[in-house]
């Protein structure tokens, strides 16, 4: 199946079997390896990207079903300047780092929808797993991001 997709602001044409999850098209066809494969079953969130600004687990989305604009971690900012990335650096959140692009994308989508999310909204949005146990620092980073977001505005 040939298809055109809008990814990180660019129109790209891809060639893949229609049931191929968006994750594998991004990683293998487009060379965007920031979104990670963790479980392939929607259980971990390592593959989180945005479609029209909303966080989705791209291992579950067949590429044929994608109609909106896709944003990956590579498209969030070219230089880590996004307030969420800045917050993650300030909190020094990553350990192995494998889950972190997905975590950053989940948080970026949350802040896009809600500039000042409640604790419940944060818990509902930040459900990605981390085997290294960085949840405490992620919590801290989310709070920093909310503050930075309010100041800088992204």
């Amino acid at each position, binding site marked *: 199946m040939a298809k055109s997709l809008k990814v990180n602001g660019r129109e790209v044409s891809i060639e893949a079997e229609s049931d191929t999850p968006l994750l594998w098209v991004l990683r293998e066809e487009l060379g965007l*390896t920031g979104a990670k494969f963790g479980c392939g079953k929607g259980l971990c969130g390592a593959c989180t990207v945005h479609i029209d600004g909303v966080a989705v687990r791209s291992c579950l989305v067949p590429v044929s079903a994608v109609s909106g604009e896709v944003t990956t971690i590579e498209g969030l900012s070219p230089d880590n300047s996004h307030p969420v990335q800045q917050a993650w650096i300030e909190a020094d959140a990553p350990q192995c780092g494998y889950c972190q692009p997905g975590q950053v994308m989940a948080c970026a989508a949350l802040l896009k929808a809600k500039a000042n999310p409640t604790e419940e909204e944060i818990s509902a949005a930040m459900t990605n797993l981390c085997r290294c146990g960085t949840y405490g620092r992620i919590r801290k980073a989310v709070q920093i991001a909310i503050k930075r977001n309010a100041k800088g505005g992204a």
Partner: protein
Amino acid sequence: MTQELEKNPREGLSRRAFVQSGAAVAAGLVLGFYLPGNKHRRAEAASASGASEERVNTWLRIATDGAITIYVARSEMGQGIFTAMPMVIAEELEADWSKMRVEPAPSGPEFNYSGRPFEVTGGSSSIRSNWEILQRIGATARLMLITAAARKWGVEPESCRAEQGAVFHAASKRKAGYGELAAAAAALPSDAIPKEPKLKARSEYKLIGKPTKRLDTPDKVAGKAVFGIDVSVPGMQYAAVRHAPVFGGECANFAALAKAMPEGTTLVKVPGGVAVVAASWWKAQKVASGLDAKWTKGATTGLSSAAIEKKLRAATGAKKLPVATSKGDPSKALRKAKVKLEAEYSTPYLAHTPMEPLNCTAHVKPEGIELWVGTQSHTLTKLVVSNHTKVPQEKIVVHTTYLGGGFGRRAESDMVLQAVEISKAVGKPVKLIWSREEDVQHDFYRPASLVKLKGGLDEKGLPVAFSATIACPSIFERWTLFGGLPKSGIDSAAVEGLADIKYDCPHQHVAYARADLGVPVGFWRSVGSSHNAFYLESFIDELAHAAKKDPYAFRRGLLEKSHPRFVKVLDTVARISNWKDPLPEGRHRGIAIAESFGSIVAEVAEVSVSAGGQPTVHKVYVAIDCGRYVNPDTIVAQMEGGVVYGLSAALNGEISLKDGRVEQSNFHDYPMLKPSEMPEIVVEIVDSGAAPGGVGEPGTPPIAPAVTNALFAATGKRIRSLPISKHSLAAQEDAKL
């Protein structure tokens, strides 16, 4: 290609001018040095002075623009080694931290060993074994830069000093950056290289011991850090593996399947099963999972978890077991004891499930083998591949990438050998990726074990006898490269944390029953201490309860005489957790302490149990004495990570077998802690100044017993087997043990 200029074998440092294609090395000062690896995870590191030119495996490069790059021959799997090792060098070098960069050491001829066969990033050993040599490297480079400046200015080196990446001559108010001096330093004659550079005293440290930001964070947050799974090689194909469901089984209908493969796919036989090669991983995986494969019987055919438990129990009853510890006469002491306790404890197999599924990219070419893999040991990988293929090690290149978690799983080379077989079969570079299901069902698991414990108290409530017989498969038996199972018949990994208890007790006996169950076993974060701390620290709690003593005070009393470091750690955790103060209604706490990998860690867990019997861990307090340390922020992070890893296992972790197959398959039935379950974790480092201990693993052992001891305080139910989720904690019911 390298061209040797001169060397200074006594120091284990060498200089070379080298022109190298892969690593893009520019001119400047390049120092090569040898970081000794642990031949055996138990062995202490060889002294740095044994280093020779061939063994150089790490490089320090000061470029003419002042950028300092350290090429580290260690695996960064989240433990922060890519930051801690440069910190030690930078301290002595008086470098400007903002100019420090770190990269994995490339695996080319210049990183080859000829003497020592391999090294592994494991056993929490990187900083423990390399501290002093790292200091010497930094100091040597600094003195060379100072000498270069002094010669340039025509002054005495002693009249110059180095600070923040520059050399200063106060009298003439001159200053030169390291970048400007790098070339001149590189050209110094060998007699200008200091033989015994004076190292800083602890009190002079400016960087070591201060919380320092990780060097690898920005790339990880940008999604730019390259993990093994992200590697791309021109012309690469993708492969997915399907293992025999029963351990040791083989594909019985390979020829028929291979003939009927869909267009564009190839079937290849690999160790443990078969692999499908295709132009995309999704395609390969879809075909692999749909294969109508028939499998032969294997080592675990028919085996179930219930049978495993029975076999382990039976093994503890065998006569004439190898004895790991023997002190006094525990049988007699037990007979005379005022209070006698006996208990059986057990823990299940556990999978590692690093977040990044296993993968390896291999290119088998006529002239040699090139590999891209996130491995805990690129030298071991090379050795194993060479043994398997008979291709000499000099013709094997291993590119170590970032590791999306290791935890011991990436010390294994099974996926590497598979990738090699596949690339060889199709004559192209191939990236093999395991699905999560294959990972959960084909691990080298933390062994299941079962222990029979006996303890006796005298009339004062003090322990007089302790005996333990542990049945557990041997990990070292398979690791013949590490010497295999020693003649004594004791696998140190099975008895660590049990055979060397620190509590005062005059009569002790610890025996090991090796159980061979056919399930592959391996090193899992903190290895034997992951189960033995649960056994010992729960049983000590039982003894404290029987003696009607406070669990903290009871432990403290038994350590007071001979183990001041343990006492300090216990006191610290008691203080930060406000142990003496009552908790709010419904909250309960438990305590545990364990030493592993040269560090002592005590933890207090604060829990509650809902009316329905659902446990919640609210807070965990951690005190660690890891001796001298580099980056306190990394230690805190590793304690948090170690606690979460152990908590995931304690609450829900179990790999069970049915009909010889693993029943779990992905994160829904082999879950890790969720963000919503994360306790607040408070860490305090006890600064003992002792020899450096590990930090990657020691946070894990105490958490299971701290939590189960707290659950005992909450419910009166003693949990003697894990995971906790298998026990009912509801108030009305009796504990099902």
